[in-house]
């Protein structure tokens, strides 16, 4: 485990990894267009860009997963050819993938020797020792004998990092590493990355989250539509970075008028409980009223019953107790089809899994949940012309960037896929809209647009429920905030509640107590600062 403290070495071949004129084409699409990039030891290089800008393509080229059409890669001045991940590893390049490349049923140590077996005998003892040594050195607390599938996501990511470190990677690529992490896990990861930088490793950090860039970056390169459009100073404002990334100025706050909540609530939930597949209650005795014309955000750390609550409202998860009314109609015993027909809109948490059929075209996905109704069907026949016409309208209205309405949705970027899902739900009159993580994995430009659409839906008189683990989003959108922990509602608080209070409530502290605690700690902090 040697590090490279040779920053002061002779000036001739500057140490580091250099990309010159990297170009990668997919058919007529130029994913990377003559990109230059310098990755230097002891620095964190943030690669910023929207989804689909070509960041991951560039890194997959660098890691040998894709072959470039043009361009040169040099390591410490020596040209190298990277034809496979194995050659990338040999060149000192390690990658922590967005979707982990781990074998779920293997232990941590077994995953470490994977691909490096070398000979007939597995040296498991050495692998275990390596895990322990590295884990101690970086404060990872990873048990070498733990099975991957039993570990939380944050720890699995550390195993990915361990794999790269065990190879003694000098250049570490993190591909959107925080997308799957809780705020706390993100903070811990940031600390780890900084310590890796401080011991002389070169870090490439790919993201579209501006907050992280400002916290981490030593160098920022912004990529848009396959090209480097500029570099920015770490101290640059978020608005400025967003502008570079999207190519126009972006409004990071959501403009909305005061909610108009009149009359009876459109969604009424009483004593709702859901039992999970293992027999453990995951939603406990939830009461909730949502009026037309207001946005209620459900905040909480992921896995505290929000998703099950949302799915129970749609009817894809069975309810163990309690009831739901939509505009006064009891819907607890209705099928999802019937609830959708009554005006329930639903944006699932995991769009890949539940939101669309990837092999279906944009047009087909835009009518996925109302294809059997006129004008899209007559009898059991499909009105293909009507479906296409509708799709052309939606694509224009929601600014869905797609080659055509016949393109499979799987070929769109994440943000545009999400626009397809939202466009589908909002293309019919709704009574209640339930949106679970409506902007997860979506780039800044698209978030701005989707938020505006959700507010517009509220102003149309729909009762909007948004489940989000992103506090920024909750604070930006909510008229009221419901905090959930352990399947229960901890409290319902107004939209102007501070982050500290919300954070404490997300950990299960009651609203009153959280406000008291937050008040005192803020004072403490103020004292320390002054």
């Amino acid at each position, binding site marked *: 485990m040697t590090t490279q403290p040779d920053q002061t070495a002779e000036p001739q071949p500057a140490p580091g990894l250099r990309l010159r004129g990297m170009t990668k084409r997919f058919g007529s699409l130029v994913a990377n267009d003559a990109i230059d990039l310098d990755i230097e030891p002891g620095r964190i290089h943030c690669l910023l860009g929207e989804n689909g800008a070509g960041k991951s393509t560039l890194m997959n080229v660098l890691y040998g997963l894709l072959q470039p059409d043009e361009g040169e890669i040099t390591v410490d001045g020596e040209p190298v050819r990277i034809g496979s991940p194995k050659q990338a590893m040999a060149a000192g390049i390690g990658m922590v993938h967005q979707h982990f490349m781990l074998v779920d049923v293997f232990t941590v140590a077994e995953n470490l020797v994977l691909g490096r077996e070398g000979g007939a005998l597995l040296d498991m003892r050495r692998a275990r020792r390596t895990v322990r040594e590295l884990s101690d050195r970086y404060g990872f607390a990873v048990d070498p004998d733990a099975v991957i599938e039993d570990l939380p996501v944050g720890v699995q990511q550390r195993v990915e990092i361990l794999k790269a470190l065990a190879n003694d990677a000098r250049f570490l690529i993190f591909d959107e590493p925080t997308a799957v992490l809780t705020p706390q896990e993100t903070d811990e990861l940031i600390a780890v990355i900084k310590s890796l930088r401080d011991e002389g490793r070169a870090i490439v950090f790919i993201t579209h989250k501006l907050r992280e860039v400002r916290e981490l970056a030593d160098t920022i390169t912004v990529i848009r539509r396959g090209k480097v459009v500029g570099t920015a100073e770490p101290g640059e404002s978020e608005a400025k970075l967003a502008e570079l990334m999207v190519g126009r100025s972006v409004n990071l706050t959501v403009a909305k008028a005061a909610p108009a909540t009149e009359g009876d609530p459109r969604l009424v939930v009483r004593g709702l409980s859901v039992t999970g597949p293992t027999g453990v209650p995951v939603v406990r005795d939830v009461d909730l009223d949502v009026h037309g014309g207001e946005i209620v955000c459900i905040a909480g750390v992921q896995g505290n019953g929000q998703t099950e609550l949302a799915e129970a409202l749609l009817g894809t998860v069975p309810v163990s107790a309690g009831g739901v009314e939509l505009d006064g109609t009891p819907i607890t015993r209705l099928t999802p089809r019937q609830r959708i027909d009554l005006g329930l809109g639903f944006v699932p948490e995991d769009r890949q899994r539940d939101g669309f059929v990837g092999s279906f075209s944009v047009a087909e996905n835009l009518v996925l949940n109302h294809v059997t109704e006129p004008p899209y069907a007559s009898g059991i026949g499909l009105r*293909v012309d009507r479906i296409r016409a509708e799709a052309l309208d939606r694509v224009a209205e*929601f600014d869905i960037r797609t080659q055509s309405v016949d*393109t499979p949705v799987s070929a769109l970027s994440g943000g545009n896929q999400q626009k397809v899902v939202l466009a589908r739900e909002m293309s019919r009159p709704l009574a209640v809209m339930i949106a679970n993580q409506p902007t997860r994995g979506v780039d800044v430009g698209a978030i701005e647009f989707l938020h505006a659409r959700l507010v517009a839906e509220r102003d149309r008189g729909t009762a909007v429920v948004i489940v989000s683990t992103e506090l920024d989003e909750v604070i930006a959108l909510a008229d009221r905030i419901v905090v959930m922990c352990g399947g229960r509602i901890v409290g319902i608080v107004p939209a102007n509640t501070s982050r500290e209070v919300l954070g404490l409530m997300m950990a299960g502290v009651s609203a009153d107590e959280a406000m008291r605690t937050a008040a005192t700690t803020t004072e403490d902090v103020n004292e320390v600062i002054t």
Partner: protein
Amino acid sequence: MSGTATVPDSGAPAPAGKQPTAPPPRANRGFPWTELATTVAAFVLAFLVGALLMIFSDPKILSQPQYFGYLATQKVVSAYGALIDGSVGSWQAITESTAQAAPLICGGLGVGLAFRAGLFNIGGQGQAIWGAILAAYVGFSWHLPPVVQLVVAVIAGVLGGAVWGGLVGWLKARTGAHEVIVTIMLNYVAAGLLGYLLTTSAFQRPGRTDPISPVVDWNATFPRLAGSQLHLGFVLALLAAVAVWWILDRSTIGFTIKAVGANPNAAATAGMSVARTTIIAMTLAGALAGLAGVQAALGPTTGGTPVPLSNGIVGTIGFDAITVALLGRSRPLGTVLAGLLFGALHAGGLAMQSIAQTPLTLTTVLQALIVMFVAAPMLVTKLLPFLRGRRVGTGVPSSSGGLA
């Protein structure tokens, strides 16, 4: 966005204020040239391997190494010559191919339709057996007027297959039983029931002790074009293919079937009933396989009358159907072409056996090799590297290709 702007076309300049991301890959839904090229290549390779097998399994050729080249060439030319002759060499041969193809097309459609719903229907065999049993029963015992008896027999057979297939869908929807296991077991049940029925007085031909039924009435036999083997069954197979195309591509039922097959979670979230769709898909698949059985029971042989019901009435239609669906990529047109191909191979194989003294089983080997090479396109492009240029040229990255 108040824009009523048109959809940005791939090449068109973007309207002001819009910065379309680079066009996504893989919108190419044109004619699948690459697939066709691979299929043809798979063919050529399969015939090459078949030729090698013929040569090296013939002791006469191996015992006379001095005439190896001559004998080997003669052997291959005569065998494949007979194969071509017997499949497309004459009008008679061509219609024999269509007759052989008809049940394969129907069965292949049944397997393919289930595939599109995400179901692996191994039960074509059992469903076809029920189709044959009921069609034959109506055919030899009901003695209805012309046309009527044929229509009733066909409907009875199709219903038999539909019920046998629907049962699988119902079991899966209600109990979660895996369709592969259930269909395999129901194949045994259907075969066993056929064997039993053939010992009962309702089915067994009077005066016979072996398990064979009376001959199907003339009124229930598929009429054929004079002097050929082109019979109504083949027309029904083509109509079935058109119907399946319409269901899959132009009806809400097919839309639902494909959605459930491609992503059951998203389908359920969109309010579709996965259970109901499973039952519908398996019922339709069973009906199509049942029609394959009807073909076996009512299709005229060269002698003019259909084969009477016996234990081997449907042969291995149910399993050949899986091969046909695989080669046809579960698409109706592909299935028709694959069915015709295998029908031709079968018809030609019979000629090859009688004229070139090459066993019929070689055609089975050829079928298997073709499908294997088609299923392993990587292997084909490795063996025939010039095809690789084509594949890359289409600019289609694999589905897992990393485009962020």
